[in-house]
């Protein structure tokens, strides 16, 4: 079986500045993996490379064995993305936004309608389908973006700091929702964040710092390896934050 996401030796420079330095990551189908790093660590840059917004010319990035560079169409078909910045069209309704996304993936209107009602039900926003996005709260907008990212049934879901700026209630709801999605099928999730409390024990974590992957694996193993009590202390030790 192929890895849901396989990144090998990817380096990315902005001019002379190395934003990513020989990054390698492996994610299996069904994995919920947290990409943990401070602001400026290189998380968004990595996502831009995976989604081919930026070109990568070092190493390789494969999604279910489709190389992003050589077979971008098949690779992109399998990716769902929730970007760091909100990307819904505020002047359109929730439904119109979701239909637009379906069209971008070549899904027929009939199929799209049934998928939309399914996804919108899962995030519990049936009654907002006809509302303008502008009238939704921040948390609701994020949930719509997650529903949208799943419409084309991707195998890999990339979320870039999806809970930043949301209140605690919405944060927990979204986190729980995505984790549940992951448990159900073989959807793999890469969840980028700088919020350590979003990591649970039995999960996997990839720690990125100054463009380098400095540690990765099961949370419990990372804790053990660094001889710390919990993941927060392990992270602080790894990135050199004094407490």
């Amino acid at each position: 079986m192929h890895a849901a996401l396989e990144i090998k030796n990817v380096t990315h420079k902005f001019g002379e500045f190395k934003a990513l330095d020989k990054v390698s990551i492996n994610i299996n189908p069904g994995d919920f993996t947290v990409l943990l790093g401070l602001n400026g660590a290189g998380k968004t840059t990595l996502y831009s490379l995976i989604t081919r917004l930026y070109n990568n010319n070092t190493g390789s990035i494969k999604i279910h064995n489709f190389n992003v560079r050589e077979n971008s169409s098949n690779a992109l078909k399998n990716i769902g993305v929730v970007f760091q910045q909100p990307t819904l069209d505020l002047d359109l309704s929730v439904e119109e936004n979701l239909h637009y996304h379906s069209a971008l993936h070549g899904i027929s209107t009939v199929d799209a309608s049934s998928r939309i009602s399914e996804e919108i039900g899962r995030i519990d926003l049936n009654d907002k389908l006809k509302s303008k996005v502008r009238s939704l709260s921040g948390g609701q907008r994020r949930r719509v973006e997650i529903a949208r990212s799943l419409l084309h049934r991707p195998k890999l879901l990339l979320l870039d700091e999806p809970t930043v700026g949301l209140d605690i209630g919405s944060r927990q709801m979204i986190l729980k929702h995505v984790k549940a999605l992951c448990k159900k099928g073989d959807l793999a999730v890469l969840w980028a964040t700088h919020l350590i409390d979003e990591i649970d024990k039995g999960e996997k974590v990839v720690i990125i710092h100054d463009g380098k992957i400095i540690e990765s694996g099961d949370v419990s193993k990372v804790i053990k390896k660094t001889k710390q009590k919990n993941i927060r202390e392990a992270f602080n030790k790894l990135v050199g934050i004094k407490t």
Partner: protein
Amino acid sequence: MKLIIYFRCFKGIVLREALRFVHQKERFFSALVRPLVWLGIFAAGFRSVLGVAIIPPYETYIPYEVYIAPGLIAMIQLFNGMQSSLSMVYDREMGSMKTMLVSPIPRWFLLCSKLFAGVFVSILQVYAFLIIASLWGIIPPISGYITILPALVVSGLMLGALGMFLSSAIKQLENFAGVMNFVIFPMFFASSALYPLWKIEETSEWLYYVCFYNPFTYAVESIRFSLYSQINLEYGIGIIVFTIIFLFLSIIGYDPGRGNLQKKGGK
């Protein structure tokens, strides 16, 4: 990839643009008011000063309003092209560009669909303008309302592609005021929109050449001739060549390999 998939994608992009157009009434309104203000104030004020002698495609001496109508139509398309393409650069809209670019459908097709969608909206605006202009007495031959269509499609594509290229290439165009000053005004004034080229040549030779090579002049003249159901080969070919060049440049501009997108941080 199957043809039907391309078609659905194209339909979705056009539909979204149309919906945004319907939802944003102010945009439609200001797109319409702008040329009408020119027509009502500028043209009325200058009609006594600037008479236009008989030049093709006109068959009689024409009042100044009639002369500048095609220029104002092109102006509608210029604004529309700059607005819909350049709005993609601004933070608020860059998001929608990103969601579009991560679609599995080839990027050139997405960009072309987006352009066509913009052109479609600009054509609706032009016809609204033509209706109001007819109340003003600016009435082309009836066939002109149909023969203008191909010219509108090509000039809309050209101006949209220019905007799209600028949006990918130029970092400094941070706000619309900058675009107005450095793109829209120079293009509009240094063209045949307000005065015929021969009149400009009488005053200043270098300005004549600027106007002559200005792509906007080709848009204006193509529209002018087609509004009178005529074809001017020179302008017709010119505008197609400009369209292909700008289209090519904008597709390169959004090619991840060249990375204009990442120079801007893609934000």
